[in-house]
């Protein structure tokens, strides 16, 4: 089975659920997200879909205090994320795979991964975790000493996911992990995420690629102009004409 182990009880923050209530996001005078509410149960997987500019990424950025202004409530377990600074969100047990990968291009693959475990002492535990990530993404191991900026798009995406997993998060937040990836690589990402789910990690996913979304998520939220217009299980939405309309304009 998976190379990934569950967080050991000693280190794990209590796994908990993410609750987002009445979230609004503003960029200057522009409101990008309007009163969006949803939750990610412990071990669950939720996807947010919708066209470009619908406000999907803004929701994730709002979780990490990376937007100019946000209102509403975001809580992870007992932690009030509205009061946490960006880096403290990570300390609450959330891993982030930002849009466009955002790997540290001038550092090596291994340095990138190690920085994922910044909050931990870089001791045997972290080394073991590193080995697990390499087992999960064998390609990264072969490139461990290379500068991350020289990796291909797919490898960079693997690195970004691996880096987020290094902190042994209980919730992983991914922003368009399939962007710019060839279909075979999208399959690989889908595979990794599915395997991740079996370890009990919760997922929150923003995606354009419908196939990946429906393969990974239990629940989908459809966003249009910053508002949640539709929500349902992947199975229901997969054949919903409304989703087709959003994607293909039919």
């Amino acid at each position: 089975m998976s190379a990934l182990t569950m967080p050991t009880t000693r280190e794990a923050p209590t796994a908990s659920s993410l609750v987002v209530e009445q979230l609004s996001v503003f960029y200057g005078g522009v409101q990008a997200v309007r009163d969006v509410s949803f939750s990610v149960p412990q071990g669950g997987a939720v996807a947010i879909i919708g066209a470009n500019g619908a406000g999907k990424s803004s929701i994730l950025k709002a979780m990490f205090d990376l937007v100019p202004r946000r209102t509403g409530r975001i809580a992870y377990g007992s932690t009030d994320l509205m009061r946490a600074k960006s880096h403290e969100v990570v300390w609450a047990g959330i891993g982030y795979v930002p849009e466009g990968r955002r790997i540290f291009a001038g550092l090596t693959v291994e340095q990138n991964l190690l920085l994922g475990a910044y909050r931990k002492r870089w001791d045997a535990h972290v080394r073991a975790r590193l080995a697990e990530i390499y087992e999960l993404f064998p390609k990264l191991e072969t490139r461990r000493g290379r500068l991350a900026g020289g990796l291909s798009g797919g490898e960079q995406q693997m690195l970004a996911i691996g880096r987020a997993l290094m902190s042994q998060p209980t919730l992983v937040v991914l922003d368009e992990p399939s962007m710019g990836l060839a279909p075979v690589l999208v399959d690989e990402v889908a595979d990794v995420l599915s395997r991740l789910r079996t370890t009990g990690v919760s997922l929150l996913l923003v995606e354009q690629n419908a196939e990946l979304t429906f393969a990974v998520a239990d629940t989908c939220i459809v966003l249009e102009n910053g508002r949640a217009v539709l929500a349902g299980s992947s199975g229901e939405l997969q054949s919903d004409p409304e989703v087709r309309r959003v994607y293909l304009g039919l």
Partner: protein
Amino acid sequence: MEVFVQTVVGGLTFGAIYALVALGFSLIYRTMALVNFAHGDVLMLGAYLGSTMILSFRLPVAVAMVASTLLTAAVGIGIERILRPLENKDLDLMLIGTLGFGIVLQSGAIIVWGTAGQAVRIPFGAAPIDIAGIIVQPYDLMILVAAAAIGTALYLFLGRTKLGLAMQASAMDFQAASAMGIDVGRMNAIAFAIGSALAAIAGNLAAPLLYVEPTVGVSLGIRAFAAAMLGGFGSIPGAIVGGLAIGLLDSFATGMFQGYGEVVTFVTFALLISLRPTGIFGEHTISRV
């Protein structure tokens, strides 16, 4: 030939000082994108603290050096707090804000130490090394070795330690860095502390070769800034190479063109930067789309 080699030796000695100052410039720039024009005045502060400890408190040179460096680093953290609103601002604002802060440091120094300067002696009296007429002072060699050691240490610190990597990550992408749980604000404070410490070390090392007075940082600061640019702003090896290059350029220009030396130094510098704006090891993007 003798003149040539001796000019190289002299140029390298002061080049090493410029390199140390440029290292601080570059470190602060690459971590928090702040061009700190008060850096030369931080050097002045470090030099004053060191020389005062030696002359007034009769502390041993090594103790004074370490203590003044730590003290300047602490002051650096305070300065970072004050200048924090300037990070990522446009150059106009950084220029005038940090220049203004430099004025504060200079007039503060006059209020505390007066206008008269202080002179410290070279701490050890070893005999000069004479190689076929080329004379090398042991102290000059020590400065070169110190610059090389500090440059290497900084390079290893940034590349090999967790804190160094975290600082690099903050510099490359502060949002992604905070998404790793890195407290970017703390990284900036540390970068400023290290940068200020480097300036203090440079000030202490240069003090016996100069005269410590409130304006001692001005010309050193400008040359070190030029050095950082020439090497490639933000690059650690660039700061070292750029510092040595400016030192050599300056020595040869003044040697060959006498009073016009400064004209030649700065015109050459302007031409070099115009031809290759990124410097020797520079940033790859200057204007982004």
